[in-house]
């Protein structure tokens, strides 16, 4: 495990820098990613809300939508960047942990 330590440190540095991915698009008024618009945006673009889209769009309520902690969705950018870093750390822990458990199980018995 020791040989992997520098990489995990590098990932934590990346997590700390992640708000760049929040600030840059905001500063340059970049808007949503193509094909990831909300219902209201779609309605403004084409003049109506597709009915199937409306039905499926709130099928799932993500606990931390868009990497903003609950109640922080409309918070100022500085607060949201703190949410963003915490989400990044949580994501690293879950992705790393989940994948580690899975691959450990898969490669059990491998040398």
């Amino acid at each position, binding site marked *: *495990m020791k040989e*992997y330590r*520098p*990489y*995990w440190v590098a*990932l934590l540095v*990346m*997590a700390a820098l*992640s708000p*760049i*991915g929040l600030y*840059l*698009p905001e500063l340059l*008024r*970049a*808007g*949503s*990613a*193509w*094909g*990831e618009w909300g*219902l209201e945006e*779609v309605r403004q673009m*084409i003049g*109506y809300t*597709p*009915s*199937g*889209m409306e*039905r*499926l*769009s*709130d*099928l*799932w309520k*993500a606990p*931390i*939508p*868009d990497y903003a902690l609950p109640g922080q969705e409309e918070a100022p950018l500085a607060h949201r960047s703190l949410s*963003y870093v915490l*989400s*990044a750390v*949580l*994501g*690293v822990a*879950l*992705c*790393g*942990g989940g*994948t*580690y458990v*899975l*691959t*450990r199980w*898969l*490669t*059990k*018995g*491998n*040398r």
Partner: protein
Amino acid sequence: MHIPDGYLGPPTYLATYAACIPLWGLAARKVRAALAARRAPLLALAAAFSFLVMMFNIPLPGATTGHAVGGVLIAVAVGPWGAALAISIALVIQALLFGDGGITAIGANCLNIAFVMPFTGYAVYRVLSRLLPSRKGQAISAGIGGWLGLTMASFTAALMFGLQPWLHTAGDGRALYAPYPLSVTVPAMVLEHLLLFGLVEALLTGLVVYHLQGSRSAWVLRPAGGEVSQ
């Protein structure tokens, strides 16, 4: 490129799930067959790395955003099957916890981002790196792989979006799901990835490969009997 819920109709999202299930099974078998236990943490690292890379949104000023994935870099390190497994896990966590990508679209997003991207990019890397065996050549090959891998994933995502109005349009001409036809989705998604986000992917992939090759960590890129490549 994370397709949200509501953009794909049931035939498309069910078909993409159906395509992913055997592919995930195959990926798990390939990893079990070829990944040394010592290299298992590398896959965990890869999933976390990809999750983070996707958080760095890159603006196309005044228009839209996108991001790199790191999928081809991961494929160079652990092979495309390992990359597919690691990136799929990152995509599932993004969808369930952060609402980045829909839950009905997990199959579609994994197909594009976790399979199409690493496999396309890795194939390009394998061919080019044989022609350009120098350290710089390897890094450039990986970079071009990243560029084309991400662009190809944007193309298959655009196909999924663009098929929707053809599959599902009500009698009054209104779309039921994603509204734009192929003639709009393909140029929009492919061009932005070809000309901006893919170039960021190329830079990330090439620079990290170049750096790793010259460091004590070069073993990360090497098969060492543990690469999941075929």
